[in-house]
């Protein structure tokens, strides 16, 4: 029998970079009492810590999973931890000197904790670790939402997010408890083994041996994580929260919970549905789950795009755009439930996740860069005449918007194409219909993205913007732009990597 100390050491062996982030983040809170430094100093320190964590990240080839361990590391968590660190670094760069000095330490401390949380979600090998990691993302987010601006709107946004997020955490815990009840263990490997056994029994005996509680667990978990990825019908908070909160936390909110949510969904799906060697399509659970994802994807796409048409507020518009994109990505998740496909839906999902992160981050980075004390950019119309005052920035913004539309030559096109192929490849009539629905939705979505392009290029400003874009913002913007084009012209390396991830488990 292991002692608690050995158990702790064993558990933390796989997650040293995250331990570093956690220690540093907690250290910030303490240091803030004694040290008063500028926002920029905290940002530089955080950036160094994230870099150090990235260097320390174990390589993806090594799969050190021991079945009983609390955490594991393989190519999947390697990819998502890398993505988490990258997004974290970008957010730090964007926040650079925009944080008031009085709360800079807390802000960057929370940010480091959140990054650690995202990474731990993908490294978790245990239901409890998964839940704790997701909470590690949520709790600092509440603080961040309220930290920068404490007016009524921000207060309302924070409260709304807090209550619904706590509710979704409870749902998640409830769902996970059903999984525990069915197997008697919280370990994901044990869960996977149990499902495999049930499936084998199922193929020999006539009656169904899969416990029905699994389906209940699945519904709860999808609802809870659907909240994180803003999938309809769990999206209602998003537009209000986005509108009320300051731009920097909103950027975080539109990226980090999505990555964490999809990582969590993949963890659960890969443990209960995608059992190597077993015919996943034959499992009744997979059929119900893919039906569930079908409905969620359909509703999210329509809800996001149709509501997006009516928005004037840029943050609300991006909230609905995020909902629609969550719908597209869930198409990938749903198609992932059938096996033996040439174009792997889950690989499509991860590819889309990279592209989504790059293009959304790009748009938000530009919006953040355009804010100044005397002139805020709130509505779509505030961007009028951007092509005259900031021609390069306007062109770059247009590239991101065309990428969101899914037009070539941007990676957004390939990301959608892969999902189209995957959806048609399932050979299920329902998913073929969904491919068509995706096409229709991409067309509807084009309308509101094009409106922004039109405002920037085809209209003159009443009062032109006169902001100088700072260099940290430029770095983020240009990196996003690079990814958006690189993944179009050289998709092969990344795609093979994504395929390898989904084949591994």
């Amino acid at each position, binding site marked *: 029998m292991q002692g608690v100390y050995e158990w702790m050491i064993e558990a933390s062996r796989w997650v040293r970079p995250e331990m570093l982030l956690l220690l540093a983040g907690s250290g910030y809170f303490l240091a803030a009492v004694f040290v008063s430094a500028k926002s920029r100093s905290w940002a530089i320190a955080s950036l160094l810590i994230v870099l150090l964590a990235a260097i320390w990240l174990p390589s993806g080839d090594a799969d050190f999973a021991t079945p009983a361990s609390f955490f594991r590391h393989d190519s999947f968590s390697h990819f998502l931890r890398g993505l988490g660190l990258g997004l974290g670094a970008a957010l730090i760069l964007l926040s650079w000197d925009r944080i008031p000095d009085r709360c800079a330490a807390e802000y960057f401390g929370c940010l480091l904790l959140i990054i650690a949380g995202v990474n731990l979600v993908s490294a978790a090998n245990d239901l409890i670790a998964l839940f704790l990691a997701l909470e590690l993302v949520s709790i600092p987010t509440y603080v961040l939402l309220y930290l920068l601006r404490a007016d009524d709107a921000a207060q309302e946004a924070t409260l709304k997010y807090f209550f619904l997020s706590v509710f979704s955490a409870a749902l998640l815990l409830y769902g996970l408890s059903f999984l525990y009840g069915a197997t008697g263990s919280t370990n994901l490997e044990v869960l996977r083994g149990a499902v495999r056994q049930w499936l084998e029994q199922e193929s020999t005996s006539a009656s169904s041996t899969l416990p029905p509680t699994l389906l209940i667990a699945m519904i709860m978990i999808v609802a809870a994580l659907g909240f994180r990825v803003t999938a309809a019908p769990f999206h209602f908070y998003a537009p209000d929260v986005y509108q009320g909160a300051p731009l920097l936390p909103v950027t975080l909110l539109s990226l980090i919970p999505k990555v964490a949510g999809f990582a969590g969904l993949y963890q659960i799906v890969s443990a209960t549905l995608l059992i190597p060697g077993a015919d996943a399509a034959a499992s009744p659970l997979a059929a119900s789950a893919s039906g569930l994802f079908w409905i969620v994807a359909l509703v999210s796409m329509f809800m996001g795009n149709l509501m997006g048409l009516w928005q004037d507020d840029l943050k609300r518009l991006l909230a609905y755009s995020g909902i629609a994109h969550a719908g597209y990505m869930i198409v990938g998740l749903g198609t992932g439930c059938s096996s033996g496909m040439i174009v792997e839906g889950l690989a499509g999902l991860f590819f889309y996740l990279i592209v989504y992160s790059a293009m959304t981050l790009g748009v938000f980075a530009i919006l953040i860069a355009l804010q100044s004390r005397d002139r805020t950019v709130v509505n779509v119309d505030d961007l009028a005449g951007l092509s005259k005052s900031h021609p390069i920035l306007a062109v770059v913004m247009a590239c991101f918007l065309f990428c969101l539309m899914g037009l070539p030559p941007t990676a957004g096109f390939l990301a959608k194409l892969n999902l189209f192929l995957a959806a048609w490849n399932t050979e299920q009539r329902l998913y073929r219909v969904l491919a068509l629905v995706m*096409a229709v939705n991409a067309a509807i979505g*084009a309308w509101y993205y094009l409106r922004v392009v039109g405002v920037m290029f085809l209209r003159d400003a009443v009062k032109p913007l006169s902001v100088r874009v700072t260099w940290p913002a430029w770095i983020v913007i240009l990196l996003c732009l690079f990814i958006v084009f690189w993944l179009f012209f050289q998709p092969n390396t990344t795609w093979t990597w994504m395929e390898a991830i989904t*084949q591994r488990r």
Partner: protein
Amino acid sequence: MDKCLLLMMIFAPLLAAVVVLLLGSNQLVRIRQVSLAAALLSLLCALHVAWHYQSATGRTAEEPFASDPAFEIRVPWLSYLPSPSGAPSPSIEFHLGVDGLSLWLIVLTALLMVSAVLISWKSIQTNPSGYYALLMLLASGMLGVFCALDIVLFYIFFEFTLLPLFFLIGLWGGPQKRYAARKFFLYTLAGSLVTLVGLVAIVLSLVGQGQPMTFSLPELARQVAIQPLPGELQQWIFLALFAGLAIKVPLFPFHTWLPLAHVEAPTAGSVLLAGVLLKLGTYGFLRLCIPMVPLASVQIGLPLVGVLATVGILYGSFCALAQTDIKKMVAYSSVAHLGFCMLGLFALNAEGMSGALLQMVNHGLSTGLLFLLVGMIYDRYHTRQMTALGGLNQRMPILGLIMMFTCLSSIGLPGLNGFVGEFLCLSGMFARHPIYAVWGTLGIILGAWYLLTFVMKCFHGPLKEPHVAEGAIIPDMDRRELSATLPLVALCLWIGLYPKPFLDRMKPEMEALSQRIKQAQKVQVYR
């Protein structure tokens, strides 16, 4: 050298776009020179391709049916997992090549690009670097569509053409430019996204039948020939492809974006829109629809397109007749002329389809010319109202002469290019379904009516000119304008008098296609 030829043709304008952007808007002269040089280089490559086409395909007098595309380039681009049966890993490729279907459209595009650059020479003064860069991007996109032999690459270029044109119309267009640009963009995008689903369906349905997965158009056509898709699926795929392509052509009820976009676009934009971009639709039918879903093309394509095209011919002609704005009249005449193309295509025999392909080139030449000439009139008088103009022959005899020639070619006077194309289209359709051909013929008469009325009103009779300042002299066409139009005029004459070289080079493909249709029908009868 031959390997790089197509690359050079497509990417010379792209390179010029970058150079032009770097030059900045102050160096107007340089910008024009660079753009013209790139357009000429593309044209030279295109002519080289056309000249060596027969030898490059390995076709000789003894063996005229070797049907591999010429000047092929294949580079894998995005590879998927190999299918369970152990086939090599399928990939989307950067696959270019030229065959009989695309050869003349490539030449047409390159030729019209030169004219488009020349016609913008003086009329574009605001932000010229942006304008020429977009024009060059558009050229790359259009040439890319015609050269693409990979189904996804085709679609990528197809969609890509929307972007530069959106900005060209939206920024340099007429008074309603913003509305026109947005409508054009969203209308065509909505349709083509559904087309994308159709393309995906073609590729993956063949995989479902146990064929190895491929995205290459020639290989897909081969697979379909061996094992056609089931009938009901073909019909769905046809409808999906139809959604995007019919809007692009445009067929009758989907044409509403066209007059608006044409009228609001700057002259070069209208020339390319009418001359080349509408052909992307008809070319798509020829390249995707008819080879991949031949049975559905006969079963639902023929009645659907037949009716819509015939209605389009008559409706377009009557609308053209009612216009007082010259540009709008030409725009509506495009709806009618594209109707002839579609009738020829869906005659689904070698005669009709080669007529349709020839008519695509013809329409590009004559409507391109019409838009060029209207643009020249507009540059001089700043009006396009027929009521404000009259007797222009006295002022500008050369322009009047070329205008008369162009109108006659557009009407289809024997001896000029329009006649050959329209005759083949209609006689092809007559063999398949006489009713549509008979109604279509009526369109020719209407065409003569509105075009000749226009020439009579504006170029004959007493001189009538708007806003001419005292003592100002309105010049006739200068050398720049002549060099923009005369090559097109020469080509019109050549096709009209001796169309054989043009028809010969598309013949093997057309024979193969009509064979495919016959085979599909035969299988249907057996079932």
